[in-house]
């Protein structure tokens, strides 16, 4: 039991009376990647800003490495790194100058500045662009520069506020790989994200936060196990005509092991125990009910389902906006 972040009953109220964070508690253990998952406006950034000493809390306590954020913010700033959602890079300076300046902000000894900057430029694959103005960088490069700046003083705890928001899939994957390697080198990482997939890939443990409250906490696997069901998504020939759909749902509900049937866009989603063994029964039941299946996919429960279960709403992200997408990824595409 060795927590690097301890948060108890943390509350933040903005004037006039907006409870951005309402009475949340959680711990982050040394060496883990801890995810804070939630939609826009859930309170993720507010929490991270309190923990990084950028914002004052209204109530509760928050300790970083045993130090109270309200009591000694200066000591906390020495040991944490923070990459904000908006890239805090000076466009008029070159990448190298940005990092050198960052060294000054963290009181890196003069003799070490050059070597440290060179090293991190190389790690972040920015050596070639180092002497160009940051304003000429692509979005992905800026994000890497910003991350490099957050790491220049070799913090033991790194805060990442939506590290991949706005990045294309290729850059997103590169950032994920880098976060993983940082963690493997022993750094504790606290990250917020609104992407289910990101939390699933990166986080050892996570909290799901919605409207300022923590609605679920655990490992991605345990949270998904709570759902206790696989999800079979069925597309019908008549393409969601209500009567047909009702008929199909009625037929499916009778099958043993089916826990719930829900409309999902133009399809129906069947939550069932032991998904793969239920597929044949499902097909037979629909067949005898006279409903024609055009497509059927089976997936394990996803964090989307977890969010849905705990909040009663779908999380609105770019990913969830794609039409007719199953609440979860098909098994063949699962990364782990």
């Amino acid at each position, binding site marked *: 039991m060795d927590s690097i972040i301890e948060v108890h009953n943390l509350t933040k109220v903005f004037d006039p009376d907006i409870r951005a964070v309402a009475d949340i508690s959680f711990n982050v253990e040394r060496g883990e990647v801890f995810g804070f998952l939630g939609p826009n406006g859930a309170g993720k950034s507010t929490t991270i800003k309190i923990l*990084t*000493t*950028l*914002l*004052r809390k209204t109530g509760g306590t928050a300790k970083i490495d045993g130090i109270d954020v309200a009591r000694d913010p*200066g000591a906390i*700033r*020495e040991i*944490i790194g*923070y990459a*904000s*959602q*908006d*890239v*805090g*890079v*000076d*466009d*008029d*300076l070159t990448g190298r*100058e940005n990092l050198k*300046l*960052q060294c*000054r*902000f*963290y*009181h*890196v*000894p*003069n003799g070490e500045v050059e070597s440290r900057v060179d090293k991190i430029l190389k790690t972040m694959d920015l050596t070639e662009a180092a002497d160009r*103005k940051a304003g000429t960088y692509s979005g992905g490069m800026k994000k890497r520069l910003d991350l490099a*700046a957050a790491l220049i003083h070799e913090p033991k705890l790194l805060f990442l506020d939506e590290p991949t928001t706005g990045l294309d899939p290729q850059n997103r994957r590169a950032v994920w790989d880098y976060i993983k390697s940082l963690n493997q080198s022993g750094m504790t990482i606290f990250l917020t994200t609104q992407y289910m997939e990101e939390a699933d890939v990166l986080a050892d443990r996570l909290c799901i936060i919605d409207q300022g409250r923590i609605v679920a906490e655990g490992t991605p696997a345990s949270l998904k196990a709570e759902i206790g069901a696989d999800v079979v998504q069925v597309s019908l020939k008549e393409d969601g005509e209500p009567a047909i759909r009702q008929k199909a749902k009625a037929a499916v509900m009778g099958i043993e092991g089916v826990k719930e049937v829900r409309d999902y866009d133009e399809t129906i989603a069947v939550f069932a125990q032991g998904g793969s063994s239920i597929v044949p029964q499902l097909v037979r039941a629909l067949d005898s009910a006279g409903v024609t299946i055009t497509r059927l996919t089976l997936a394990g429960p996803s964090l989307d389902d977890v969010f849905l279960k705990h909040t009663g709403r779908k999380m609105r992200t770019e990913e969830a906006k794609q039409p007719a997408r199953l609440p979860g990824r098909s098994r063949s595409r699962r990364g782990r």
Partner: protein
Amino acid sequence: MLEDSLFAETYAIFGRWMRKTLRQPMFLFFSLVQPIVWFILFTQSFSQISKIPGFAALTGTNSYLTYFSAAVLIQTVISSAMQSGLGLVQDMDSGYLDKMRVAPIRRFSILTGKVMSDGVRIFIQSLIIMILGLALGVTVITGVGGFVLILLIAAAFGVVWSGISMFIALATRNSEATLMISLLTTFPLLFLSTAVMPKPFLPDWVQTVATYNPMSYIADAFHTLIIHGVDWVVLGQAALIIGAIGVVTLAGTTAMFRRAVFR
């Protein structure tokens, strides 16, 4: 030099702003366009003012260009000082201010480094305008020493005046508002001072305003150094005025800055 001294921190922030400023020569030049136009066109159009009886006796010069150079210099300083807040707005918008706030540097050095760089910027812009003045035929009676003193007064006045722009920037967090409010609140003061016209030439009510207008005292200091010679009483008054404005604007800016930084 200790890496975590206030000096080292301020110097790092100062260096950042100087780099940014010098890397945008157009920005440096932009605020000089209007003073340059004034210098060349106004002094041509109004050159006959110096022929008005009493002008030479009151001012000590028979060249309106020489007299008006103080006004152009003050205008340069004001428009230069007005830009000071813009960098802060940019830093608040881009997230760079948070980047500095999350680092273990003194909050105060973020401000001192910025103010110092503004002083140097205003000094450079004043230098350019004064060199242009010399090229147009202005003579500075106090020589090189007086010339340097003029620039130092300009920079000092600029720094304290830039507090207005920074105050508005920190309060509104908006570039347009910062420029507009600074422009509207400070610019009319120039015309209600002795910078453009000797006091007896001004209408009665403007004379009254000019008496209480800090810019009159700055203009008088410039006039003295350009036309008459060193007059410590006039220079002392200017120094007091600058000090007084400084107390007000820097206290206001510091208060607003604290609000922006200690949230």
